[in-house]
């Protein structure tokens, strides 16, 4: 799979390279949300904010701050993580739905600032022509950069999910009251989870800058936040690679459906409904469950 992704740009047109790069970025974004959604059971309803803030931070540092774009890429995720920490401190004491609702409001606040502050963020036009380092300036270069960073991030996230931190995070998802009773500081744990998710969301945002060379306020809008949740559900939110698959699927579908109709969100809504009825575990969750059953049956013979 990895090898196929590595040699793939030599064989196809620019458009497809761009599309696959976008799938990787979006997949990474969904995976970062799933750190708290699937593995922590926290309904993070404003995840796009960290994507957007990571991207804007990198772009603003480069364009307005005049720093080297590489530093922008490095600092973008840090800014996103810092914002996640601040929002987390405010929200984390609330339970499930209230947590999500307060997050939406805080996220909308950030969106409104970005959307209105013409002199600094470019308002609803966003920012275009953000300088990208020459090494990764070409579409091939950008693609390989995205591929490498995505793989590295996924590896780190995989480590975290399988660490004691990740295990305990899952136990909080399953039963926060009991987790507290066995000696876990649940709020601290959740806060750290949020910061991690915000950081990797920010990484995805900076990768988007590499691919597109521009940023715009829609990246922070709450509808995108919901789309990211749908990607996780679609791919399978209790599997590690499910969100990667879900993100890729949504990008691919939008590219195809977008040719025929403007009503992409309607199509997405129908997909979500079918998903809830027929594949509640998501695509990857469904297949791993089938595979598991098949294996168990095989052993039984």
């Amino acid at each position, binding site marked *: 799979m990895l090898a196929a992704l590595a040699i793939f740009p030599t064989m196809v047109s620019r458009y497809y390279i761009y599309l696959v790069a976008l799938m990787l970025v979006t997949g990474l974004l969904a995976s970062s949300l799933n750190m708290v959604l699937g593995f922590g059971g926290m309904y993070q309803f404003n995840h796009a904010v960290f994507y957007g803030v990571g991207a804007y931070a990198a772009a603003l540092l480069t364009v307005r701050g005049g720093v080297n774009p590489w530093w922008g890429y490095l600092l973008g995720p840090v800014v996103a993580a810092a914002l996640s920490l601040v929002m987390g401190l405010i929200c984390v004491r609330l339970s499930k739905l209230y947590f999500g609702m307060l997050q939406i409001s805080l996220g909308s606040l950030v969106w409104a600032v970005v959307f209105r502050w013409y002199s600094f963020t470019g308002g609803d036009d966003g920012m275009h022509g953000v300088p990208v380092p020459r090494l990764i300036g070409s579409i091939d270069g950008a693609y390989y950069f995205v591929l490498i960073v995505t793989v590295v991030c996924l590896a780190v996230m995989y480590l975290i999910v399988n660490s*004691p931190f990740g295990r305990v995070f899952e136990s909080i998802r399953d039963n926060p009251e*009991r987790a507290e009773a066995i000696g876990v500081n649940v709020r601290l744990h959740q806060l750290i989870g949020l910061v991690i998710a915000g950081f990797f969301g920010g990484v995805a945002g900076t990768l988007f800058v590499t691919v597109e060379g521009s940023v715009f306020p829609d990246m922070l809008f709450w509808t995108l936040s919901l789309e990211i949740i749908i990607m996780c559900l679609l791919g399978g939110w209790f599997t590690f690679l499910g969100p990667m698959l879900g993100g890729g699927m949504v990008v691919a579908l939008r590219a195809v459906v977008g040719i025929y109709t403007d009503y992409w969100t309607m199509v997405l809504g129908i997909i979500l409904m079918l998903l809830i009825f027929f594949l509640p575990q998501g695509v990857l969750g469904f297949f791993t469950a089938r595979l598991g059953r098949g294996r168990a049956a095989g052993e039984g013979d």
Partner: protein
Amino acid sequence: MLKVKNLRKSFGPFLAVSDANLTVAQGEIVAVIGPNGAGKTTLFKLITGQLKPDQGQVVFKGQDIAGLSPHRVCRRGLSLSYQVVSVFPRMSVFENVRVAVLARRRQVLRLFTPAVRLAGKETWEILENVGLSDKAEVISGTLSHGDSKVLEMAIALGNRPELLIMDEPTAGMSPEETRATMGLIRRLNGDMGITILFCEHDMELVFNLAQRIMVMRQGKTIAQGTCDEVRCDENVQQAYLGGHGNA
């Protein structure tokens, strides 16, 4: 080891626990009995920090722990095994116990060490001790009721408590499971030196296991003493045993 003094808790106008008093000495097995609604579960939740008392003291190993958050209470060596099964349903039996062991070892914030390398041996010993080792890989949400109750205890043991509080450990168990659990409780107390406080409706089990008994009624402690003392106590006979007519 544990001393509860004049503990009081109300939910709105309803006084769940009005005046609870209890002492538990190191190494003892103590039972709390009382009719339904007497406030036993509330008392246990007050001791372990899941509820905050309105008044009164909970002294554990010489320090007042009333009102501390549950994870702080747990870290002092006091664990609760729940009446209503409360495990981590999507995780395997093994991981259920492992997280408790990790929590006790204060390793829960390690981000980059694989969890499979930590706490495996200790987790395995606990599962063998309680008799769940053959179900280690089963997803805990699919366990039978009796096995879930045993897992409850195993999770609490993962914290290696000095005082283990059990809220109706054998509720809903078959007679064989009940016998096995009684044996387990005796072993925990005898071999591992864990002090045990529990409540139970099965009087035979209570008088069999407990060295001392505390009796509650309508949120008040009405008697505490050895089994014989409690059996002969007039208040108790009137309020509880007589009322039931079957003990």
